[in-house]
C-alpha cells in the first residue's frame, strides 16, 4: 500500500463521527485531569484507562491517544500557572512559563505552548506516517554505550538551564543524580538509601519530588513576606500572542520540533531529554540569553514543541516494533492487549485500518486539542484571579491527594514534605530546582547504561569510543564544554590585558 492510500484509509477511520467524538472526549478528559496538581500524564492515563475498555479497539485507542495529548497539555498548564510540573518536561516549561504568568503573561505562555505543540505534533505525525519502520530500525542501533554518551551530552548542555551560578546548577544536577539512585539497585537488588523501608525500594516518586521542590517550595517563598509583597501572579494583561511574540516563537518552535522528533524515536530515554535539549539550544542561540529564566517566551515555545514532537515520535518504536519507550507507552501496550491486539512488528500489516487510523487520529487529536485549549486559555487565566490565600491550600491538598492516588503509598507524601523544605532552603540560598529534576530523571538511566555498557564490553571503557555513534556524541559533549568555557576564558584574558595597559 502506498503512503497516500494508507493515509486516506487512516482518515476514513479517524473521521468517523463516533471516533471524532471519543477523540474529543479523550482530549477533554485528559486536559482536565492532567491539569490537577500532582497528576502528570502517566497517572492521568493510568486513571482514565478503564474508561476505554468498553469501546471497540480503534475507538478505544484513538480515545487513549487523545487522553495522552490532553494530559500532556494539562500538565504544562499547571506548570505555567502554579509552577507545579507533573513530569520532567513540564519542569522546563515551568522555568519561564511561570515567570511569564507572574508578569501577567500567562495567556501568551499558554497560547505559545498550545500552538507550538500543535505544529510539532503535526510534523511528527507526518514523520510517523511516512518513515516509521526505517526510523525504528535506525533507533535500534542505540545500545547502552550510545545512551550513556547521549545522557552525558544532555547533562553537560543542560547547565544552560540555570540563569544564576553555574556551580550551583552543577551541584543541583549532581544532587538530583544522587536522589535518583534511591531504591533497589536493578543489577544486584541491593536496596540503597532506603532506611530499610520497602516503600522506597521503587525509588522516590518523581511527582513527589517535583511537587516538593517546585510547588511547596514556591508556596513557602510566597508566604515569606505576605504583608509587603503581592504574592502569586499579576493581573492578566493580554490573552493572545502579540506580533512580537509570534516573531519570537517561530524559530524555537521549528528547532524544538526537529530536536524532539529525533530524540523521541530513541526508546531508551530520548524523550526525557527533548525539552531540556530544546531549552538549552534556545538559550545558547538567543541574542538575549539573560532573559531566560525571567519570562522568555522562547523558553516556553521551544521545549513545549520539542516535548510534543517527542511524545508523538515515541509512538514509532511502539507501533512498529511493539516496544514501549516510557511508562505511558507501557500503559498503551496494556491497552492494546486488552483490545486483543498484541503490539508488534505485524500490526502494520495485519491491522492496517487500526495502524493508520491511530496515526490519522493523532493529527486530529492535536487539532482538537488546539481548538479546545485556545478558548480554555481564558478560563485557566481567570483561575489565577482566585486569591492566593484560597489557592495555595487547594494546591497543597490536591497535590497530596493526587500523589497518594497514584500508588497509595504514604511515603510519597512524606517525600513531598521533605523535598518541600529542602527545595525551599536551596532556592532561598540561590539554587534553582529545574537542574535537580533533570538529574533526578537521568540519574538512574546514566547508571543503568554505564553499568550495562561495561558488562557488555567485559569491563573495557574503550567501548564508548570504539562505537561511532557513541564517540560522536561524546565529541559533541566535549565541544559543548569547550564552547561553554571559552567565553569566560576569553573574558579573563581580556581583563588581564586591560590591567596591563
Amino acid at each position, binding site marked *: 500500500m502506498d503512503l497516500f492510500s494508507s493515509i486516506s484509509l487512516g482518515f476514513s477511520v479517524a473521521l468517523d463521527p463516533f471516533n471524532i467524538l471519543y477523540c474529543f472526549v479523550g482530549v477533554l478528559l485528559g486536559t482536565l485531569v492532567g491539569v490537577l496538581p500532582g497528576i502528570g500524564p502517566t497517572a492521568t492515563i493510568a486513571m482514565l484507562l478503564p474508561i476505554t475498555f468498553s469501546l471497540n479497539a480503534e475507538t478505544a485507542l484513538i480515545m487513549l491517544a487523545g487522553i495522552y495529548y490532553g494530559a500532556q497539555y494539562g500538565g504544562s498548564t499547571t506548570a505555567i500557572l502554579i509552577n507545579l510540573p507533573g513530569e520532567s518536561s513540564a519542569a522546563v516549561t515551568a522555568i519561564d512559563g511561570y515567570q511569564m504568568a507572574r508578569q501577567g503573561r500567562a495567556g501568551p505562555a499558554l497560547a505559545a505552548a498550545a500552538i507550538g505543540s500543535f505544529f510539532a505534533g503535526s510534523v511528527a505525525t507526518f514523520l510517523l506516517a511516512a518513515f516509521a519502520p526505517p526510523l525504528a530500525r535506525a533507533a535500534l542501533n542505540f545500545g547502552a554505550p550510545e545512551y550513556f554518551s547521549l545522557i552525558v551530552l544532555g547533562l553537560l548542555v543542560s547547565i544552560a538551564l540555570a540563569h544564576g551560578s553555574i556551580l*550551583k546548577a552543577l551541584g543541583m544536577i549532581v544532587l538530583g543524580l544522587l536522589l535518583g539512585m534511591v531504591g533497589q539497585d536493578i543489577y544486584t537488588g541491593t536496596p540503597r538509601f532506603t532506611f530499610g523501608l520497602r516503600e522506597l525500594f521503587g525509588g522516590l516518586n518523581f511527582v513527589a519530588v517535583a511537587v516538593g521542590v517546585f510547588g511547596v517550595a514556591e508556596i513557602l517563598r510566597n508566604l515569606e513576606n505576605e504583608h509587603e509583597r503581592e504574592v502569586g501572579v499579576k493581573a492578566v494583561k493580554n490573552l493572545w500572542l502579540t506580533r512580537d511574540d509570534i516573531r519570537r516563537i517561530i524559530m524555537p518552535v521549528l528547532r524544538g520540533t526537529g530536536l524532539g522528533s529525533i530524540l523521541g524515536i530513541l526508546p531508551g530515554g530520548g524523550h526525557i531529554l527533548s525539552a531540556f535539549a530544546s531549552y538549552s539550544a534556545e538559550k545558547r542561540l538567543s541574542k538575549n540569553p539573560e532573559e531566560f529564566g525571567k519570562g522568555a517566551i522562547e523558553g516556553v515555545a521551544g521545549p513545549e514543541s520539542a516535548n510534543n514532537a517527542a511524545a508523538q515520535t515515541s509512538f514509532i518504536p511502539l507501533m512498529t516494533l511493539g516496544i514501549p519507550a516510557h511508562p505511558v507507552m507501557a500503559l498503551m501496550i496494556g491497552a492494546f492487549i486488552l483490545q486483543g491486539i498484541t503490539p508488534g512488528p505485524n500490526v502494520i500489516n495485519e491491522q492496517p485500518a487500526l495502524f493508520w487510523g491511530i496515526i490519522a487520529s493523532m493529527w486530529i487529536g492535536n487539532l482538537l486539542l488546539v481548538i479546545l485549549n485556545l478558548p480554555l486559555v481564558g478560563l485557566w487565566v481567570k483561575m489565577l484571579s482566585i486569591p*492566593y490565600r484560597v489557592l495555595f491550600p487547594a494546591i*497543597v491538598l490536591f497535590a497530596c*491527594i493526587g500523589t*497518594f492516588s497514584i500508588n497509595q503509598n*504514604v511515603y510519597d507524601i512524606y517525600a513531598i514534605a521533605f523535598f518541600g523544605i529542602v527545595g525551599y532552603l536551596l532556592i*532561598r540560598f540561590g539554587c534553582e530546582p529545574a537542574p535537580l529534576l533533570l538529574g533526578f530523571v537521568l540519574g538512574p538511566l546514566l547508571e543503568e547504561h554505564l553499568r550495562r555498557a561495561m558488562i557488555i564490553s567485559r569491563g573495557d571503557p574503550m567501548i564508548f569510543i570504539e562505537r561511532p555513534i557513541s564517540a560522536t556524541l561524546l565529541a559533541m559533549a566535549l565541544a559543548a564544554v569547550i564552547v561553554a568555557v571559552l567565553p569566560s576564558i576569553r573574558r579573563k584574558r581580556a581583563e588581564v590585558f586591560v590591567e596591563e595597559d
Partner: protein
Amino acid sequence: MALNASKNDLASGAIFVAFGAYFALEAMRYEFGTPFRMGPGFMPIVLGGILVALGIAVAAKGIGKPDEEAAPPWPWRGIALVLGTVLFFAATIRGLGFIPVVLISGFVTAMSSVKNNLVSALIISVGLCVLCLLIFVVGLGMIVPLVGPWLRF
C-alpha cells in the same frame, strides 16, 4: 553581622556537602564492584564525592562577597503549618479517612496565611473537601475510605 562572605553561598555549599557526604558514606556500605561488574556503591560514591567538591567550591566562591540583598524573613508559620499538614495527611489518610483528613488539612493550611481567619479558613476547607470529593472519589473513582477505620464504632 560582620561576616565577610555570602551567607547564601555558604549555606547552599553546606547543604551540598551534607548530602554528598551522606550518599558517599552510606554507599561505602555497598559493594563497589569492578569495572566489568560495577557494584551498587560505585556511582553514589563517585557522585557523592563530586557533590562534596562542588559544595566546597560554592562556599569558597562566596567568601569575600557578602550578599547584596538582605535575606527575607523566615515564614515560620507557613513552614510549620504547610509541612505539618502534609505530614499529617500522610500519617492519617489510611486511618481517619478522606473526609476528616481533607477537612482538617485544608483548615490548617489555610491558617498558615496571615490573610485568613478562622471563618475564611473554615469556608475554604469545607469548599475544598467537597471539591476534592467530587473530583477524586466521584469523578476519578479513587479507592479510599471516606471515613477511616479509626473513626468507626
